[in-house]
């Protein structure tokens, strides 16, 4: 399976990449929403995108909205991974088309359990 990690923090991308690689995911990275859209043009639809909310250039919520307009990526599961913890933001992310929501800080188990919820357990 293939995943795209979108976060402006290199350390956070590294942590998520490590967790996903242990699950045998091939992992791509982007530092903000615009870069993620560019990366997706190269990779085509991936199985999973982990998307931060607050990033320069294009925010995660705008990336989710944009990606959900594109039918090529309709099979891609999107999980927000963010420090935003208000109910309104969870609702907004789901309405925009995110499938799951993880609040930072998280543990490895949190990611594994959410992948289970999305039907994306270790291949």
């Amino acid at each position, binding site marked *: 399976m293939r995943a795209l990690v979108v976060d402006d923090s290199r350390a956070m991308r590294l942590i998520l990449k490590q967790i996903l690689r242990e699950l045998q995911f091939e992992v791509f990275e982007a530092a903000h929403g615009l870069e993620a859209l560019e990366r997706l043009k190269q990779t085509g639809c991936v199985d999973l995108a982990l998307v931060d909310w607050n990033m320069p250039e294009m925010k995660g919520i705008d990336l989710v909205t944009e990606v959900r307009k594109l039918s090529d990526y309709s099979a891609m599961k999107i999980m927000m991974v963010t420090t935003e913890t208000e109910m309104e933001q969870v609702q907004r*992310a789901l309405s925009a088309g995110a499938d799951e929501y993880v*609040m930072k800080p998280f543990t490895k188990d949190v990611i594994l*359990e959410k992948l289970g919820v999305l039907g994306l357990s270790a291949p």
Partner: protein
Amino acid sequence: MRERSAIVLDAGKEYLAESRLAPVARGLGLSTLGELVSRLRSEPRGSLSSRVVEAMTTNETSFFRDLNPFDALRTTILPQLIQARAKERTLNLWCAASSSGQEPYTIAMVLREHFPQLLEWRVRFIATDISTEMLRRCREGIYSQLEINRGLPARYLVKYFEKRGTEWQIHKPLRDMVEFVELNLAGHWPALPQCDVVFIRNVLIYFNLETKRDIVGRVRKLLRPDGCMFLGGAETTLNVDEGFRREAADKTFVYRLAR
């Protein structure tokens, strides 16, 4: 604990040690946690310390823990029971060793989400635990950010919780679905109704064989003839109670009365 498992127990976490270690103490025939601590001090490197560490670390709970039992409940067990009870329209569920409440509330969310017709039924849903502190937490239904991060689908968070400061509380209608009752599995049980579904997961592992037999035997007498029991993934009735048979249900197994 810190030396063996890197887990640090801060002040205020006494209830956690109490709820996790009480079954270990009972399994050894010790009546208090003080006796358990004395035994640990006398043999700090023995097998007991491993059991204590295991109890403190692996007995954790989360929403939708292991997923498959709740899928089986939704796709197989409840549809069968709802059909079988269509005339009497009653259903009794028991969730034993409910800890901080994630398991009973997961079941409550499955009921509310997928079986709205049960609102018109007489559904009695009892959740029990040995710890009064855990029962208080269950009734309150307040969870930290880390707890709601674990296994809870975001759409259920939005639908069944409200934010209170930095924590999250289960909506009152869902809290009202569950009756929380104090019950020591190894001791005398308060009156319980004949049950259609019993969840008794990841708790039998802490008891010796004799106590396991006693508990499973008592569950067998409580189950209705077409009812079923859910055990933890590492638990079985094999060599414990021959009155049960294992049956596949969705991607997991349930235990039914042997015919």
